[in-house]
């Protein structure tokens, strides 16, 4: 059979082969296109076959990974995100900037459909992952590919090791042993710049760490599962310059393999790590372009004011 199920593909990535190789793995597959049954049609028959579709659409993901098409999110009456269209490309870092409360987190949470957990939230528009409408995908499968770091550190009430290993242990159909996990956990902790501080007390409860340590632990936790798209919501908000530098290094390192979206209030940071920048204001995506363009030659007046530091 030339068709691989998604989880087999995923196991491959979990066992250490970088996700980008998947193109090669699935490359020889015939491009079977499954009809998309336009947006409001009944999705059930497609969902069953979308696993095949992943492989079939392979050529599409060399560049563009996610595509947001006129996304709108409301909480009851309040519009948090209005008609936003944006792309997330692999090999690039997209930075979202904008004043507090402008909908950055909401946009991010829409990308892995976590916003659906809020009972009052109503979402419109489409979000595509590799040409596939995410609403037709299984939520869990989507989130396996699209990882997220939260604005507030939220380590689980368990040991440091268990926190980082959690995703690997609980998301597959089989649980890897501690031996298999150890190198991955250590690697993730190193990349998150926290290894030196926790190396000799991995069995300590994660909740006893400081705020900044918890934040880095959560970064390690989301790195350990090797997502293909990584959403980072203010990853360095509580960090010292040294830790920040390590995280930024990791981001730059990772971006050759995966697509990264980062929300930040630190404009220098955006300039340092980002390739594309989106500026949001009151739910609108006011400006979207390359980092040079947005910071040096912004088109909108508001963007100009914001990047100069006149408001926000």
């Amino acid at each position, binding site marked *: 059979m030339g068709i691989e199920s998604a989880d087999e593909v995923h196991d491959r990535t979990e066992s250490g082969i970088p996700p980008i190789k998947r193109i090669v793995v699935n490359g020889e597959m015939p491009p079977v296109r499954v009809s998309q049954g336009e947006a409001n049609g009944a999705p059930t028959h497609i969902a069953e076959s979308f696993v095949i579709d992943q492989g079939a659409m392979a050529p599409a993901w060399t560049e563009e990974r996610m595509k947001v098409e006129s996304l709108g999110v409301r909480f009851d009456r309040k519009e948090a995100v209005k008609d936003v269209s944006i792309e997330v490309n692999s090999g690039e870092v997209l930075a979202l900037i904008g004043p507090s409360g402008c909908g950055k987190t909401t946009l991010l949470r829409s990308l892995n459909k976590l916003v659906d*957990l809020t009972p009052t939230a109503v979402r419109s528009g489409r979000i595509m992952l590799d040409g596939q409408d995410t609403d037709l995908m299984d939520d869990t499968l989507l989130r396996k590919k699209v990882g997220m770091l939260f604005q507030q550190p939220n380590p689980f009430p368990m040991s440091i090791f268990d926190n980082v290993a959690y995703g690997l242990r609980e998301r597959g159909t089989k649980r890897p042993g501690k031996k298999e996990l150890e190198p991955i956990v250590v690697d993730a902790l190193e990349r998150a710049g926290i290894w030196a501080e926790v190396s000799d007390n991995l069995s300590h409860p994660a909740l006893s760490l400081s705020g900044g340590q918890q934040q880095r632990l959560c970064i390690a936790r*989301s790195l350990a599962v090797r997502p293909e798209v990584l959403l980072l919501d203010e990853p360095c908000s509580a960090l010292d310059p040294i830790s920040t530098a390590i995280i930024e290094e990791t981001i730059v390192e990772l971006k050759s393999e995966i697509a990264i979206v980062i929300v930040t209030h630190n404009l220098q940071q955006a300039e340092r790590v980002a390739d594309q920048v989106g500026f949001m204001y009151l739910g609108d995506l006011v400006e979207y372009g390359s980092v040079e363009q947005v910071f040096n030659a912004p088109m909108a007046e508001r963007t100009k004011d914001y990047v100069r530091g006149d408001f926000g």
Partner: protein
Amino acid sequence: MSSLTYEATGIPVESEEADPVNRRVELLLGALASSVLLFIAGMILFTLFKAWPSFAANGLAWFGAGGNVDAQLTDIFNSPADPADYIYKLRAWPLIWSTILISALSVLLATFIAVFSSIFIVHFAPGPLQKLIEPVVKYLAAVPSVVYGLIGILVLVPWINSTFITEEMRSSVAYVIQLDGSSVMAGVMILTVMILPIMIALIVDSLRAVPLNWREGALALGVNKWRAVRTVSVRAIRPAIVAAAVLATARALGEAIMLAMVTGSIGFAPNPFDGFLFFMEPSRPLAPSILDGEEGLSVVPFGETMYAFGFILIVSCVFFSFSGWAIRQSLGRYSIGAR
């Protein structure tokens, strides 16, 4: 109530210690509240005092096995009128064993069902079913135990008798007991249903109190919803589950009426080595034993024996309720718990 609408003038009246009326109200209410403690202490002490002759006459053997406990109770009941000749000999193990057995089995079963159904109620039940199931749980809690007992004795016991008990079973134990469906199994099944609502109420409350961002964190890692709930939420509320089980144990130990109706009321210690037959055997826990002996309370040595049963029950129930309460209190401090 209209006084509620006035705005505070900003001068908080801090203490009224000097006001004698206020002081007297406080003292009066405080005394009232403390009387609860006095009552409990009094109840335990008086019951022990009344039960003492039975314990004293038997020593530790009181708790042991030996002989037919029903025959011993009959002897005690038929004691000569002269206090010097009172008979006290009792080996209460069959009753204690039955109490432990039936309570433990039903608490285990109920814990299992309660955890799963609480997860279902909080995280998986579709809207309408969720709206239905919570009143259903409250309703189950409110059904009087005698109603459960009636259904047990008129429906469940005959059903067990005709479905599970074969002629071989009957004849294999005919020399000691008669199998008629009144059994450990009937008691455990109904007792489970009776203690479930208490447990579910506590577990549902604490599941709801688990911070959403933990579950979100798990979901964002690509863990499915069931696994996220099981490995994060249920893990976090383990102490609350223990508290619920402990409180349910107190309730199970004290149930008298329903068990008196469905367990066969025979002072027999079911033998786990009998295999499946074990569940079909009749027995009688402590609480129903008191109820059965209620008519004989005025016969002094018999009454004292009954108070001895009562004392054992009170002490263990008070112990379990207190432990459950203490666990819940400590939960509250870490904000994940029922209340």
